[in-house]
């Protein structure tokens, strides 16, 4: 298994009239073939910006400040728009949050799919149509021939997301970026779409960067999980490690804030405070003001990523040898289920 996407020390800012907004700060991760990496975090922590910047879909005022993006062994950080276009859809494609608005309302879905195929492959219209129908069948859409001619408004939300997925997978990309693909959907439809993403990607070895704030969804689908806070990855590890042995206080907070836990404890935990503004952020750990375990050094210096296991890293001073030992909250104390 080779690495298909590698992001190293990647920072991205928006230049606005008010100043520089540091939306993504020193992010690094690698994505193996066929692997599903989930990125979780609160709204506004930079998940979507990170995704869109990988495909370079951001407005012009988004500027890469440092780092590299390597896709299939090639450094694409400095690629021109023209070269990026040849990658989009072909090597890396994206599924968006709301299937109600991401399809063009006036164009039959079949045409929107063949458009994606014809863009990257030199084949005839008939062959493209055959491929699109095959794709629709693979996305488990019944009566694909009839649906092919339909406008999006005649399809249900789940059906539309299947079409969006078909478009994203049309040219067999190596990396699929899924930005909360199930958030706008009904819960029963959610699982079906998740299973579909899981099975198709595992079958064809497509690596998935899966954005979500729903930990149940993440638990179902992810091989590895990265926790993002204020534009930074604060903890990254296998799903098992993140869910059963979390080390960062923010991860504790996120896991503790699940409604499912509240059923047991009759109390819904929440993380105090609000996410910080990324406009001229202060020095130190940005989570410190909301962290009950914050140390003095948290306000002065940004914690580095401490390694816990070969796959598990967390950026908190609590992992420093000199730090006091703090027990994770009681509700997290359950051994990994085998």
């Amino acid at each position: 298994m080779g690495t298909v996407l590698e992001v190293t020390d990647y920072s991205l800012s928006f230049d606005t009239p008010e100043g520089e907004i540091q939306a993504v700060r020193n992010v690094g991760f690698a994505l193996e073939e066929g692997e599903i990496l989930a990125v979780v975090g609160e709204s506004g922590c930079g998940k979507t910006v990170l995704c869109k910047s990988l495909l370079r879909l951001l407005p012009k005022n988004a500027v890469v400040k440092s780092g590299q993006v390597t896709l299939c062994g090639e450094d694409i950080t400095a690629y021109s728009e023209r070269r990026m276009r040849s990658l989009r859809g072909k090597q890396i494609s994206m599924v968006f949050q709301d299937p109600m608005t991401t399809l063009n309302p006036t164009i039959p879905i079949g045409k929107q799919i063949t458009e994606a195929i014809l863009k990257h492959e030199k084949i005839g219209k008939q062959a493209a149509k055959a491929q699109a129908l095959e794709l629709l069948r693979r996305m488990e859409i019944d009566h694909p021939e009839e649906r092919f001619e339909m406008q999006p408004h005649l399809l249900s939300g789940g059906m539309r997301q299947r079409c969006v997925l078909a478009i994203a997978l049309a040219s067999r990309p190596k990396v699929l970026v899924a930005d909360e693909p199930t958030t706008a959907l009904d819960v029963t439809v959610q699982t079906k779409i998740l299973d579909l993403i899981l099975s198709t990607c595992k079958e064809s070895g497509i690596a998935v960067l899966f954005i979500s704030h729903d930990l149940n969804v993440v638990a179902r689908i992810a091989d590895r999980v990265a926790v993002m806070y204020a534009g930074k990855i604060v903890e990254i590890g296998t799903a098992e490690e993140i869910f059963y042995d979390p080390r960062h206080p923010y991860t504790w907070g996120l896991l503790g804030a699940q409604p499912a836990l509240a059923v047991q404890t009759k109390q819904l935990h929440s993380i105090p405070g609000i996410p910080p503004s990324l406009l001229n952020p202060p020095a130190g750990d940005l989570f410190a003001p909301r962290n009950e375990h914050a140390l003095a050094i948290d306000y002065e210096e940004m914690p580095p990523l401490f390694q816990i296991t070969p796959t598990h890293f967390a950026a908190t001073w609590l992992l420093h040898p000199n730090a006091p030992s703090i027990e994770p909250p009681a509700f997290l104390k359950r051994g990994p289920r085998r």
Partner: protein
Amino acid sequence: MPENDHLSFLKKILLRLLGFALTMLILSVVAFCFARCAPGDPLQSFYGDAVESMTSEELITARTRLGLDAPLTTQYVRWIGNAFQGDFGLSLKYKKPAMDVVSPLIGNTLILGLTSYLLVFLLATLLAVACALHEDSFADRLICKIGTAIYYLPSFWLGVVLILIFSIHLKWFPSSGAYDIGRARDILNRLRHMVLPLVVMIVSHLWYYAYMIRGKLLDELRQDYVLLAKGKGLTNRQIVWKHCLRNVAPTIVSIMAISIPHVLSGTYIAEAVFNYPGIGALSIESAKYHDYNLLMLLVLITGALVILSSMAAQTVNEVIDPRMKETGVSAWQR
């Protein structure tokens, strides 16, 4: 199912025809009353200066003869009865049937109006696409500023300046008329006469519509589906032409439909400035001379054009975007 579709289609056509007839009827009543409320004496235009030397008895006889003495309702009923038989009455000024006055000129106006109408929207769309593709660039901002400035040039003034430069000084184009005498069928000759009026028409309407379409396109470019299209690897150009323009098309068609009176009124001014024989110049004249019958005919022609074009726009919109099909349910009831 198909039979049912067929029936509902027929029903729809019938309903629209009924609506058309009703609107025309109301229009005729309003125009009839308004024309007669305007101050002035139609006898002046019929008899010219001779009116001043006529005795009051002669004036009364003249009025009776022209049917102007009856009460307004009687006059209207008489007029509409004749109109249904295809008789739109005499033109008071030209002293021949109103239809005969209008029919030779209507072609001239239609040629000028239609050409400028199509050119205005073609150029407006192209300009809007060019601006939207380079949004907020120097070129876009420059075009916006120049466009706005040019839009506010009064068209009658522009017409006169154009005549001064291109007809009098350079002698490239004729300054008036629709064609040279005896060359009504010579297309090139007609075109040469149309160039200057067309320029005036286009300059005075272009930016208004280009700016509207540009705004619509920019709204459209901010939609989510544009990101998906970009994610497919499409170029900006492909996205604007194949996706956005298609979605803006219903708006453009609607704007085109409601702008018919606007562009038509533009032809009226161009016709007046360039002395172009058409129904625009004729309308102004008929209103000025209280030429009731001629005015009514012209109002009805213009009204029919406007209503028919908005109906055509509705049909075209339904073809482009099937969501617009009338369901008989208003948006509020859904």
